[in-house]
């Protein structure tokens, strides 16, 4: 039955995360972009929200709540609204935990999940993107080759968040020579997995991301997610796409709200610039497009929650949201005029972050 209203439970989660995002995360956004650091105390506070632990079955020390892509989309938007780098950092452990919940064997869950139910933040991550202009989840260049009862990984990944401190890395790789894709659960320090220098990007500067090179990296076959049969990788990718779409909506909303408030204050030619149609119409279109992208995102998430294939919806939502976020953030800068270009204001940061969504994959998961 069509409804555009989150359940009471979802609203509670969203409101709780929104309050944290506004009071704790947003004030750190500029500083972490400048320093490249996120305060450990903030990470611990974020961990206490339980957004990762909630999904882990009680048997392994978690809260055992049902995993919902819609609920995830709601709180991801709020955190990304406050700051995309910090949002990705806080939610990075989900990049391992969600695939485990969705597709892990009992043995894999038992071995890995308890690490993520402790009182303190434990980093985990996924290695998805590769450093190529035509990077494609449908034809990965990192390969996993079966040899003598093991898999051997080779190739290079990039944009891997928190790789240096991650306890586990979920590596997305092509299996054999066909187009089969598998996910491999690597432990920190596995021989042949080389974490290279921290990357320097245009945006996302607060988030530590790394290139990770695999050279003759040999792992037992039991470390393939889902066991010998593998898992529904498409579903995992779609959960990532929905998460990035929700994050794009969050960043766009941040730029929109900032510009809207500025435009009502800033006077030119005797009136607030928001009273000029050139500005007011930009803001109106920004508002419409943000809602449009959010609804596409919710629909894709809803379809995933029903267990259906949502590849088309997730791909379209992510693309739409990525384009939308760029358009909205650019206008955010434009509406502030020269001041938008100065780092005293956050809109330039939103624009640098927004530009990334066309490129980002695998930084977040719903």
């Amino acid at each position, binding site marked *: 039955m069509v409804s555009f209203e989150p359940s009471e439970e979802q609203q509670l989660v969203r409101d709780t995360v929104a309050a944290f995002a506004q009071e704790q995360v947003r004030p750190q956004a500029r500083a972490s972009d400048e320093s490249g650091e996120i305060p450990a105390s903030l990470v611990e506070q974020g961990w206490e929200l339980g957004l990762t632990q909630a999904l882990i079955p009680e048997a392994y020390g978690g809260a055992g709540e049902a995993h919902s892509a819609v609920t995830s989309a709601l709180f991801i938007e709020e955190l990304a609204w406050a700051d995309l780098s910090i949002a990705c950092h806080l939610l990075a452990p989900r990049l391992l935990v969600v695939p485990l919940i969705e597709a892990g064997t009992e043995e894999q869950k038992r071995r890995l999940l308890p690490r993520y139910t402790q009182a303190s933040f434990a980093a985990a991550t996924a290695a998805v993107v590769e450093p190529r202009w035509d990077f494609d989840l449908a034809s990965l260049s990192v390969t996993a080759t079966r040899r003598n009862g093991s898999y051997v990984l080779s190739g290079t990944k990039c944009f891997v968040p928190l790789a240096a401190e991650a306890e586990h890395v979920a590596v997305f790789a092509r299996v054999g020579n066909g187009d089969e894709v598998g996910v491999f659960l690597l432990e920190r320090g596995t021989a042949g997995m080389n974490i290279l220098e921290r990357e320097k990007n245009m945006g996302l500067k607060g988030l530590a991301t790394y290139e990770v090179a695999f050279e003759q990296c040999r792992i037992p076959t039991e470390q393939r997610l889902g066991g010998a049969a593998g898992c529904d990788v498409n579903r995992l990718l779609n959960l990532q796409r929905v998460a990035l779409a929700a994050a794009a909506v969050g960043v766009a909303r941040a730029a929109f709200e900032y510009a809207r408030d500025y*435009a009502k204050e800033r006077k030119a030619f005797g009136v607030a610039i928001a009273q000029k149609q050139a500005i007011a119409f930009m803001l*109106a279109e920004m508002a419409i497009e943000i809602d449009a992208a959010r*609804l*596409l995102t919710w629909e894709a998430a809803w379809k995933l929650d029903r267990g259906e294939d949502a590849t088309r919806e997730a791909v379209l939502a992510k693309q739409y949201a990525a384009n939308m976020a760029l358009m909205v953030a650019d206008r955010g800068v434009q509406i502030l005029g020269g001041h938008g270009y100065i780092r005293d204001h956050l809109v330039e940061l939103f624009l640098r972050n927004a530009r990334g969504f066309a490129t980002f994959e695998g930084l977040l998961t719903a």
Partner: protein
Amino acid sequence: MIDFELPPQVQQARDMVHMVAETMMRPIAREYDEREHEKPWDFLHTMWEASKATNPVSFGGGGKKEPGTPSVRNLQTVVSIEELSWGDAGLYLSIPNPGLGGAAIAAAGTAEQRERFLARFRSGPPKWGAMAITEPHCGSDTAAIATTAVRDGDHWVLNGTKIFVTSGKMAAQESDGFVVVWATVDKSAGRAGIKAFVVERGTPGMTVVKVEDKMGIRASDTAMIVFENCRIPLDNILGNPEVQRSTEGFKGAMATFDATRPAVAASAIGIGRAALDFVRAELEKQGVKIRYGVSRNKLTAIERDFMDMEATLQAARLLTWRAAWLMDQGRHNNLEASMAKAKAGLAVTQVTQKAVELLGPLGYSRKYLLEKWMRDAKINDIFEGTQQINLLIVARRILGYSSKELN
């Protein structure tokens, strides 16, 4: 809970309407585009017989009937309109029903007026209702209406010229219908002086002087109507006859649009979907499949365009459903209705124009319906508030400005 599943009764209605669109509208779509000003009487009679029993005596407004059972009426309306317009938007607009005028009576009329003007739509031969706001010198700026209504004993006397009245000829002249006419009772009072009046068909002094030739939606008549000392009973005024120094009455009339804008958006989406379906089918004939999930940098230009069209249309559809759903919940939807209308009007304009480009000669040829859909589509960005007027409404809402502060 967030949910995108249409309720079963809406799905059933959609399937039924789709069959009508496919079997009755598509086959005559080209014919009545070319034979402008002629009426597809078989189709109109069939639609009348099929729908008269359920013709709404009220339209829009709050949906909640009993506590615990939210209505789905407005959702069903927009879903059905999408199907009809997928069949043919011009034919959809020509279907006999109370129309926009009916919507105004349902929203602003008394129970007695609803009975007097709307009950007839449940029986007898086909009938049309129409709404006349636009004038030669004012369209978007509805507050500048020059048509006057002057009280003279037991009557109101109307004088002025209305243009672009959808189904105006059918309502004023060809059937037992009516035209809801907006006129000012006190020019000096501005918006507060503007009132809506119901003029019965054939009232002396009301003359249809012209039916326009148009770029698209040619199956729908668009009339110019002149009022010359046109006398109507006093109780044909909708709402309060007193000129208050507030704009309550005007606002009430404008609220009609909150119900009708999602309907226009839905019609736009139906046309856009027709175009998209056609493009997809033509591509498939050539073995072109849209590859979802492949790097955007590896997609062909056609794939990229197609995916953008698909996404923008779906976004417009969800905005439209949301505006209708809010109405069904009995909640305000002024902002959301304008958002949906602005988005859908622009989306369908862009999607159909792009589709003509993508299909080359197939798109441009009158052998196929695509070029017609492009012509039909454009009206959705113009009537019921142009793109700009809807942006203005959205902007005022999000900025908290009055029409004085932002215009």
